[in-house]
């Protein structure tokens, strides 16, 4: 701002204005002869001066234009009303008095002026003090710039920006809502947000459906709560999120636990989320309940294992049958040939025919036995409550004659009642008794006893260690016995340890029957010491 220094001139009294003075004429010509009023007059900016009391001493035509009037008795400014930029009435006295006392100029200030016709303008006001050269002030000089347009432009821009901001916010909200809805309503997948340490931040309907917790119950808890105790001990949850943090994602399939303690088979993908600096800030976890599929798969697998097993058995039967039928068949062929060469010898003839018959008979028995063995896969539906004493009595009746002939001394215990297939139990006892008698010595003694499995038995046989009650039935004889080394072999199909008559399938049948009843059979024997067959069967 221009600072005016005045020459040493006597002050004149201020003239009171009763009427507006014509524009452009300095009111105090002789005071402001230094003023180049002509220049100020042509400036397109409103300029006016005031004395120390605020009375307007000079104004140019731009000022009149701005004010909408020539100044009257208004102090400091010729406008009808003046306000702050916020619209509060402007306390001009206070402002200018302060300025004069401490001499600091007023910084460019936005004000609002109101004209008589009610119109308003935004004004940038610049004011400075005029000094008299002796340290005293003469008055002030004011420049007022109309910034209404600029301001209104600004306002419009601001409004536009505001509107735009609001629009963006709305769009963002809508987008957020869409995503939220997209995730929330999904019922087939549990979609969760976890923080860096695995605490649940977010929940969706799918999560509630699959895992059982409501949002209120689970938000803030650690996701470890979904895992089985054994997995938590093994630190599986931690390992999975660390894998995700390291590799971006981690996949896993396994049993998980619901709120009510039941389990489901979950297929899980954990994805790491990053901030703009690539730090891991959390995880998204998507879980799918695949329990049904797993059960179906397991069923399929066990079915196919079953089928495989049966196929294998079928192949074995085919092999054994065809192989073991070869022998009697061969003999029939060979003896038939030999017979042809001995047609004249009647005794030889009869002998050969007998041998051929015998072979044929063996073939029949073999075929019957193989069939019996293959049919031993009884389903649960054939199981019923059986009194083993009754079964044993029936078997003893079958062997009545033989027992008498061989003068067998028989000792029989009381046997329990259990669940099984009656006809198979009969077969089991029958085979064992038959063996005992077949391999007996001259004074045969056979005992059939029942007891609890001993500690030794339980230690040797894992089957007995499952917490279920078993009975131990022992068929003991004092016959020729055999080497304990062959103990396993005796139960193999068609294995015979010597040449006594029989197809060798009896004990294999016994093994299959006991196993089909969830039990087992073992044997202890020594040559000359007889044999002790131990059958273990589950009690009711």
């Amino acid at each position, binding site marked *: 701002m221009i600072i005016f220094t005045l020459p040493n001139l006597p002050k004149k009294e201020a003239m009171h204005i009763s009427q507006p003075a014509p524009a452009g004429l300095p009111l105090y010509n002789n005071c402001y002869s230094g003023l180049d009023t002509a220049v100020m007059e042509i400036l397109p900016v409103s300029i006016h001066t005031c004395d120390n009391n605020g009375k307007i001493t000079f104004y140019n035509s731009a000022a009149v234009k701005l004010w909408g009037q020539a100044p009257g008795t208004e102090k400091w400014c010729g406008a009808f009303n003046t306000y702050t930029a916020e619209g509060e009435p402007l306390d001009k006295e206070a402002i200018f008095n302060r300025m004069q006392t401490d001499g600091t100029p007023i910084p460019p200030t936005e004000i609002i002026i109101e004209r008589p016709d009610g119109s308003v303008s935004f004004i940038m006001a610049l004011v400075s003090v005029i000094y008299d050269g002796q340290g005293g002030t003469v008055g002030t000089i004011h420049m007022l710039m109309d910034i209404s347009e600029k301001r209104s432009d600004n306002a419009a821009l601001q409004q536009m920006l505001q509107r735009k901001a609001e629009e963006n916010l709305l769009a963002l909200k809508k987008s957020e809502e869409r995503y939220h809805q997209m995730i929330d309503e999904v019922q087939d997948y549990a979609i969760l947000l976890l923080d860096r340490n695995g605490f649940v931040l977010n929940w969706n309907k799918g999560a509630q459906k699959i895992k059982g917790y409501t949002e209120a119950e689970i938000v803030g808890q650690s996701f470890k709560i979904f895992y089985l105790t054994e997995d938590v001990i093994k630190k599986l949850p931690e390992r999975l999120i660390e894998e995700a943090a390291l590799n971006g994602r981690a996949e896993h399939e396994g049993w998980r636990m619901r709120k009510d303690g039941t389990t489901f088979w979950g297929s899980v993908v954990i994805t790491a989320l990053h901030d703009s600096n690539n730090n891991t800030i959390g995880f998204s976890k998507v879980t799918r309940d695949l329990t049904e599929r797993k059960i179906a798969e397991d069923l399929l697998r066990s079915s196919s294992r079953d089928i495989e097993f049966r196929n*294998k058995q079928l192949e074995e039967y085919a092999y054994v049958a*065809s192989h073991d039928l070869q022998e009697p068949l061969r003999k029939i062929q*060979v003896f038939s*040939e*030999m017979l042809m060469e001995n047609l004249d010898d009647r005794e030889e003839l009869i002998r050969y025919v007998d041998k051929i018959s015998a072979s044929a008979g063996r073939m029949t028995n073999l075929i019957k036995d193989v069939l019996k063995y293959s049919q031993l896969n009884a389903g649960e539906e054939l199981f019923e409550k059986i009194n083993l004493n009754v079964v044993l009595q029936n078997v003893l009746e079958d062997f009545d004659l033989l027992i008498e002939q061989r003068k067998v001394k028989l000792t029989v215990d009381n046997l329990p009642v259990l669940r099984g297939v009656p006809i198979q139990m009969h077969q089991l006892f029958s085979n064992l008794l038959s063996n005992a008698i077949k391999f007996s010595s001259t004074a045969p003694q056979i005992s059939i006893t029942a007891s609890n499995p001993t500690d030794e038995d339980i230690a040797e046989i894992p089957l007995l260690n499952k917490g279920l009650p078993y009975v131990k039935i022992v068929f003991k004889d004092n016959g020729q016995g055999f080497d304990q080394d*062959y103990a396993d072999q005796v139960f193999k199909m068609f294995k015979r*340890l010597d*040449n006594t008559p029989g197809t060798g399938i009896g004990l294999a049948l016994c093994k299959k029957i006991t196993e089909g009843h969830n039990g087992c059979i073992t044997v202890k024997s020594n040559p000359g010491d007889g044999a002790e067959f131990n059958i273990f069967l589950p009690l009711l």
Partner: protein
Amino acid sequence: MLDISAKNLNPQPMNSRFCFLIDDDEDDREIFAMALKKAKAEFVCTMARNGKEAITKAHEGDFVPSYIFVDLNMPMVSGRDVVEAFKNIDRFKNVSIIVYTTSSLEKDITELKEMGVTHYLVKPTSFSALVGILSNLFAHKEMPFFLGEALPAKPN
């Protein structure tokens, strides 16, 4: 049917040659003896009914058969055990051991071949076939190691 115990053969006449058959099947022993008679009338046959008896006889006696025929599938002491035992008997060193069996398992054939048996003979279904093989054998005719039809392999 000829069944001469080893003890009766001491001392051996030079032109009386004999076979030693070890087979647990009574019928097969009879068939063999008949076939032997047909193939080479002067050949006689010593028999053992099982492996244990065969080894005992071999150790107790000092006979040297011209041929030893061994069945494989015998209870307790198998044909394979017998072959192993006989291979350790000095005087049997140059005796031709022939497996005479129903089994045609690949592993049996290979194993016995490695143990040094001369032939592996599968019991034929024809009497005349057996006679023919024995004739050729005694006539020192060139014959393959494996004599007989092989059955299909056992499933795994």
